[in-house]
């Protein structure tokens, strides 16, 4: 049996849009396989090349180099058949705002040549399953962000695709929509759909995926089951503390606290890498009391993808400051 997705040496160079700006190597000779029936996660920070890959896999973007085979069909010459087998949910919900939820679904059903009776049954079923039934005749213009996302997912699966591609389906959504989307992904997978999911949330990838590829700067650093990647994730959790007065001098002492793997200075703060942030917190508080120092701020940070990437590729953790402040794995604890 062939794989659901086979990718070989996939590369994308964006030619400079404006004169003078250099070309961007967004995806750099990436190869991987997704087995049938798998939920495959494509995990990476912003700008890693996830959307670029997603768009190449779904025929929207022409690769600079490399081969893509979807369900046995090579995109280079059998895109038509591949397109019939796939459904896609883009990063931005692209629904027709001038049409109602119902009309959006029926239109998509017609584009995929779902027979009339079937598409109406299926549209009703999906609208109900996604909590959009009451608003089915309202123009999608008046839908909330979460409703739009749910509608765009419903539109992606009206023709029961064999492979579903989702590009960061949950960030910025309300809890109810997020829960609904994740449970739908699991359910569709249980019914046999292969899922290709890009995300920048480590939790999402570990909760949902059978296997995860970690991508950074257009390259894959590792592909493995989330349990096995967990070790790498854990190594790069941390506690961040700012002490006053004279916060700089505590570095060496903090690094010697039990459970601290490494201390890295980040501005006026110290970042203490540890496998177990919650055990380390009281020790840091105790240390501060002992030293008569005031704690200006104290946070625990989940693993940042940048650090995971560095850990996996054997580079120095903490040598890159995570760029995305909106990383949901970043939890604030006491902030004084």
């Amino acid at each position, binding site marked *: 049996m062939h794989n659901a997705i086979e990718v070989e040496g996939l590369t*994308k160079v*964006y*030619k400079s*849009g404006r004169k003078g700006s250099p070309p961007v190597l967004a995806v750099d000779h990436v190869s991987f396989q997704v087995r049938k029936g798998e939920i495959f996660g494509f995990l990476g920070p912003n700008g890693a090349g996830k959307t*670029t890959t997603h*768009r190449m896999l*779904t*025929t*929207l*973007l*022409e690769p600079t180099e490399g081969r893509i085979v979807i369900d046995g069909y090579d995109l280079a010459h*059998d895109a*038509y*058949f591949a*397109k*019939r087998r*796939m459904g*896609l949910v*883009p990063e*931005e919900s*692209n*629904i*027709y*705002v*001038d*049409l109602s939820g119902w009309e959006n679904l029926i*239109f*998509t059903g*017609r*584009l*995929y*040549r779902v027979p009339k009776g079937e598409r109406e049954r299926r549209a009703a079923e999906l609208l109900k399953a996604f909590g959009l039934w009451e608003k089915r005749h309202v123009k999608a213009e008046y839908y909330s962000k979460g409703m739009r996302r749910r509608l765009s997912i419903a*539109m992606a699966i009206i023709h029961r695709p064999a492979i579903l591609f989702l590009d960061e389906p949950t960030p910025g959504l309300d809890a109810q929509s997020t829960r609904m989307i994740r449970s739908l992904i699991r359910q569709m997978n249980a019914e046999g759909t292969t899922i290709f999911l890009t995300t920048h949330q480590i939790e999402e990838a570990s909760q949902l995926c059978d296997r995860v590829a970690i991508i950074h700067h257009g390259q894959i650093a590792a592909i493995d089951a989330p349990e096995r990647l967990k070790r790498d994730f854990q190594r790069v959790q941390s506690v961040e503390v700012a002490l006053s007065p004279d916060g700089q001098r505590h570095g060496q002492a903090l690094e010697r606290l039990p459970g601290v793997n490494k201390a890295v200075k980040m501005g006026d703060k110290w970042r203490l890498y540890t496998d177990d942030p919650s055990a380390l917190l009281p020790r840091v508080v105790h240390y501060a009391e002992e030293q008569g120092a005031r704690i200006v701020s104290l946070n625990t940070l989940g693993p940042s993808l940048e650090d995971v990437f560095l850990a996996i590729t054997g580079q120095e953790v903490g040598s890159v400051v995570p760029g995305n402040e909106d990383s949901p794995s970043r939890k604030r604890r006491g902030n004084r």
Partner: protein
Amino acid sequence: MRRWSKARLWDELAQIWTVASKDVRVYYLTPPMIMFGLLMPFFLFFSFSIRRGMGPAAGLARLLALNTFFTASSAGPVIIPLERRARTYDRLLVAPMSLVSLLLGKTLVGAFFAVSVALVSLVGGLLLHVPIAHLGWVILGVMLVSGSFAAFGLIFGSFPSSSVGGIMMPSTLLRWPLLFISGIFIPLEEMSPWARALSYISPLTYAQDLMNHAVLDRGVIPLVVDVVVLLLSVGLFLIPAIKLHHRSKVLGY
């Protein structure tokens, strides 16, 4: 592997219709379509082309050609950039149909708008008892000319851009010269030989001549030639549109 079959052909035809009917429903009374498709041609007509001593029938033939040219060729450059910006265009690009079908669907949209605007002029003409030589030819001719110019408009709509303004500008810049070299303002028979040779480049020349045949029963080019040229031009205009779509796919729009 069999790539084409009767079932596939049927699917593609249905999808052309799906694409076109959705657009007609969504865009028929939107401000850009009214502006570029409806007001502009009438404005042009009343400000430039009514000449003293021109009979009502000649006026109607000219109005029909002008209308159809501007309305049909406006749909592509308005609708495609709007859809690219809303990213809904991706839906059509990933749907299982050939790019030609998608483009024919979009051609049909422009043609539909042009035919409906022309219908207004035509009904007005009939109410005013403007003599029309061959009504059947007028209707067929309007449809053919609309199809050709709608496909022409797609060339501009296909430029890798998601701004209507950025596309309307060059498309207007190119449409004006075609308008002026054509036989629409100066009848072909009054042109100097070199101007006349030049006018044969413009598809509008054939449209105007076809309308003259239909309304006035008086054309300069043989009717068959008008029809064949306009039919072929649909295919001819689709080629750059396809090329430009491919370019968008490389650039990442």
